[in-house]
């Protein structure tokens, strides 16, 4: 039994970054980790973060597994626990259980083109995988990043997107329902961006994260363009509470999203994906 999955480990807030009005990043450190030990996790996995006396919440890990000492969680203050966490300052403490679940198929993606599709407010699991790829750029082929948001200001990591767009063999396509005169943003949704990018399905994997309705239409568009369902990967969200596949809240059909996911190969969840009530 891995005690880190049942008993929280204390971690200290080393830095707090305000990303937008209600989104913030906590950079955490385990003081108990011995000298050269590193916190081992895979992009796409998540932790259960505990705020003292308030409760736990599932948050994906946004930093790189190779980072020394620190690991980052980007959090949107929406609920009781996350609003409380937004009040944390440098030097404060949280509890951490994890890492949980299955991350992105990065070994399988090596040597292939990668299409990354996301929607909504800066999808943290996707930022983790993009960072991972660009730090190991030579291992991957053409990278296409597509993101759609409602408002221009929802692109909280706009600078990073601009930097990524400068990289070789990389396409960044951004869409906003309301681009507010920003000429670099396509006026529309992420699915409409498919007409503006050149995707070659033969040697590519696609990774998707965001609202399920966005993923549903993006999956349809990808499959129309010849992507087999075995090379589409989606990051799912459900009500994760234990992380160990025990508490039952995150079940999607017979799957425990916390343990069998949160990243799934699409053909393995197609039976349940976007079915009302699952």
């Amino acid at each position, binding site marked *: *039994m*891995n*005690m880190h*999955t*049942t*008993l*929280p*480990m*204390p971690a*200290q807030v080393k830095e707090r970054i305000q990303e937008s009005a209600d989104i913030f990043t906590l950079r955490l450190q385990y*003081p108990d980790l011995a000298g050269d030990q590193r916190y081992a996790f895979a992009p796409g996995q998540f932790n259960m973060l*505990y705020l*003292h*006396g*308030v*409760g*736990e919440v599932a948050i994906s890990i946004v930093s790189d597994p190779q980072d020394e000492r620190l690991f980052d969680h980007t959090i949107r203050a*929406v*609920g009781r626990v996350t609003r409380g966490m937004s009040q944390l300052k440098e030097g404060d*403490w*949280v*509890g951490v259980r994890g890492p949980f679940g299955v991350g992105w198929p990065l070994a399988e993606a090596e040597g292939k083109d990668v299409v990354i599709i996301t929607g909504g407010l800066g999808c943290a699991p996707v930022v983790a995988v993009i960072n991972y790829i660009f730090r190991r750029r030579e291992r991957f082929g053409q990278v296409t990043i597509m993101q759609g948001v409602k408002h221009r200001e929802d692109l909280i990591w706009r600078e990073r997107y601009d930097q990524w767009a400068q990289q070789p063999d990389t396409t960044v396509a951004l869409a906003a329902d309301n681009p507010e005169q920003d000429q670099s943003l396509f006026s529309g949704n992420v699915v409409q961006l498919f007409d503006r990018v050149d995707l070659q399905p033969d040697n590519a994997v696609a990774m998707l994260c965001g609202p399920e309705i966005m993923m549903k239409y993006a999956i349809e568009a990808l499959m129309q363009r010849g992507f087999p369902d075995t090379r589409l990967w989606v990051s799912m*969200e*459900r*009500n994760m*509470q*234990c992380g*160990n*596949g*025990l*508490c*039952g*809240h995150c*079940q999607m*059909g*017979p*799957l*425990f999203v916390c*343990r069998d996911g949160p990243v799934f190969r699409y053909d393995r969840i197609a*039976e349940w994906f976007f*079915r*009302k*009530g*699952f």
Partner: protein
Amino acid sequence: MDQAWSRPVHLYGVERPRGSKTVPSTPVFLPPDSLQRLLDSLRGSGRQLMGPLVRDGAIVFDRIENAAELPRGMRDIQSPGSYRLEQSDSPRLFAWANGPQALKPMTFAPEEVLWQVVRDDSGLHFEPQASTPAPTAVIGVRGCDLAALQLQKAHFLQEGAEDPAFQRRLDKLLIVAVDCSHPADTCFCASTGDGPDAGPGHDIALTELDEGFLLRAGSPQGQEIIDSLALPPASTAQLQAAAESSRGASDAQTRKLPATDLRDALFARQDHPHWAAVAERCLACGNCTAVCPSCFCSAYEPRPSLDGAESEQVRLWDSCFSFEHSNLHGHPVRDDIRLRYRQWLTHKLAGWHDQYGRSGCTGCGRCISWCPVGIDLTEEVASLLEEPA
């Protein structure tokens, strides 16, 4: 998939319990006036003894010491939405089917502290709950609840993710099962293959006959206790009577599930109009999940001290019928009762096959009796299957 477990469990006839790896020991005969000797030896080694008692008009499990406390002559009259006890002249102590409690609370506690945390100037300090449960023997467990314990073990003791609290309680539990001789009208364990006799998972199993009890061991610990009683072997006539009692308990069951594997049939009927018909009656009260011996959902709740310095993390039974169970970004995935009833039934009878290789229902019938509006799982399944998918 292996359908061997779909047969009713009869021990003294030709059929053997599913999954049974050990040959049952030769049954021995315990006269009624020696039952106290068995109870005393169960209470040996510092164990507390739990057994069936009548309380608040139902059979419940609680601490007992004497055989005289057992529910002599008590019968349970169960039907959809109804549970009544009736006193009879029978000298039998186990002539009832079940009460609202399964074995479940003794291994998966309704409320359990998982860990404590203290905050001080140097940070947060987490400590696992380390209390040791009292060694406990329980007498009166039925085949349906033993089978459900096997299901709970499959869930809570997955390799690499064993639940420490469940493991601690199970390690301290000695189980004395009783073959069911008087199923209730709500029982259907014969059709799920989990009764009426006690299958694997007990330490000792007991068959109640008019003249006394037959005892057989299901574990070395059980064998040791039986050996210490120095009882004579059961006679051929007694074994014959036990086999007849078992067959009678199967034949008496009128309810059944149509098959042990309904996975594809139910998942193919996700959009069946009958789900809405059930939802018109279902109150989403969660009684069925509270009495179900296999339901495993739980919620995590912090209990901070008043000064905020300390807190406990408590695990409580939860129900997929509660509104917030499937909450996602503040709104439930299953926001109406139709979806919640469908979740419960399709998980129990379909999803379990993917998760643990068999149905999650062991035919105890509690969800039928304890439903305040008398929704009958077997009837709902029959209605769903009436039309082709």
